[in-house]
């Protein structure tokens, strides 16, 4: 398991567009943005309009917080003080299970895995877990591998 993240060395500042997203993670819910007109979903919530219909009448979709690893990197050389003791750690892009749209559009999110590199593979299912920080207003989602899959791919050079 990777080392802990020192959140005291990271000052996360929610803003007008993101405050509700952070309020949701505090309740252990994983939100993505959703268009109230056409239903399109996206991430991150800093994007204030729907890329499909340009509507700014937007809300939230509560995902199950479950997805599949689409890609990953292994950070061996941390550049932020908060992650000095975390390395080596895996950042993954997660394709959310319940955000696939009829035209094939997917919503992908990212986060630090709870798992080591050796356990990580593209194609594995994972789910969000929620990590308290020293700031009582901020809970940061991470991702934990939750099972196995038939077709997986692991970088092994």
């Amino acid at each position, binding site marked *: 398991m990777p080392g802990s*993240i020192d959140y*005291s*060395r*990271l*000052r*996360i*500042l*929610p*803003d007008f567009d*993101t405050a509700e997203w952070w309020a949701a993670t505090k309740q252990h819910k994983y939100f993505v943005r959703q268009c109230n007109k056409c239903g399109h979903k*996206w*991430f*991150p*919530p*800093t*994007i204030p309009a729907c*890329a499909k219909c340009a509507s700014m009448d937007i809300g939230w979709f509560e995902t199950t917080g479950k997805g599949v690893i*689409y*890609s*990953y*990197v*292994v*950070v*061996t*050389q*941390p*550049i*932020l*003080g*908060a*992650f*000095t003791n*975390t390395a080596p*750690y895996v*950042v993954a*892009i997660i394709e959310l299970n319940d955000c696939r749209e009829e035209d*094939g*559009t*997917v*919503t*992908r999110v*990212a*986060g*630090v895995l709870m798992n080591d*590199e050796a356990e990580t593979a*593209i194609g594995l299912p994972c789910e969000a877990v929620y990590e308290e920080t020293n700031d009582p207003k901020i809970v*940061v989602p*991470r991702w934990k591998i939750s099972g196995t899959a038939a077709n997986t*791919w692991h*970088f092994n*050079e």
Partner: protein
Amino acid sequence: MGSLTDKYCIVGVGETPHMRPSNRTTLSMACESINKAIADAGLKPQDIDGLTSYQAGDSTTSPHVATALGMRLNYAVDILGGGSSTEALVAHAIGLLEAGYCKTIVCFRSMNGRSGRRMGGQAPGGPVSAATADGDNQFNMSWGWTTPAQRFGMSAMRYLHDTGCTTRAFAEIAVAHRYHATLNPKAIQRSPITIEDHQRSRWVSKPFRLLDCCQETDVSAAIVITSRERAYDLKHPPVFIMGGYARTLTESPNWNYSRSEIHYVAGNYGWKRAFGMAGIAHSDVDFISCYDAFTFTTLIQLEANGFCGKGEAGDFVKGGRLKIDHELPSNLSGGHLSEGYTHGVQMVIENVRQLRHRADDACPGWAQGKHTYDRAAGCRQLRNARICCGMAWGWENMASCLILRGMAA
């Protein structure tokens, strides 16, 4: 061919040395590189009436430079930009010249990219002790995912998964560009490397090793652009701008990492415009430059711009194909991987020098265009340097291109 093809020219190029550290301001370095580029064109600062630059909140501005060098400008603008901005500012300059806003334009970039603010948030002394995650940084800094190596590594990993390519293809690019740097007295990394050296180098952000990553340097670089009619009277034979595209975007406006394929990049949507405007085919291209913030960024631009098929770039670069005296020489100065990091300008500068037949190498007569073509003796000049295709990208979702020809083509 486009109505603007060959109508405008690059007539001057110049840069400071690549330094670590510079112990200078970005204004001081900008003045040096611009003075050199203007002198290279055979012009004076007072001949320049347009000045543009790109930066990331890490540099001086055009009005500051104009004040320092005594230029009375008819046009000045500084954009926020990154990789692929040089080619975009050339397109922008053509528009300004065509419309009559000014007559001769300098585009520059000046950055203390090593000793000042490094990309991804690292301070000169090491990891940032406490960092503020606001705006978009809430959704990358909060999970330790900030540097270009960490961000582009995500696309590279998926590319390896999707295509079956291995990192030995990355190594081919590192080796080719380093070989060119061994022929470039200005380059900061001049020791030759092998595929095995690449494979043995330490991990930075898997799947990237140290030798997949560019150099970070303190440097400024500048180019001068004017009309063909003025160019004929200047110091060097003109280098003609045949075509290009400027900061084309990908097929989907989604967050980059929600696009259907994260390594299907913007060049795919741009290259037909550039080649159509230039009126040439890929087989007409004698050499290329390819934005090499990482080995991988060169690799996928080759397929994005149609030099090989989708997913075929790994095979395409095998056997030293990108080396001088091989099929498609790439980044003849050594590029970002080995010469130093100018955020893209040096690619255009080297291409101009090659097209003039005046690569500044170890040949005693290089300034007169006299080259030996003896690589063992340090000659870096291509024998046949007539048409060049320069490709650049900022992120996966943004790319530019510039096709140039020399007088001989």
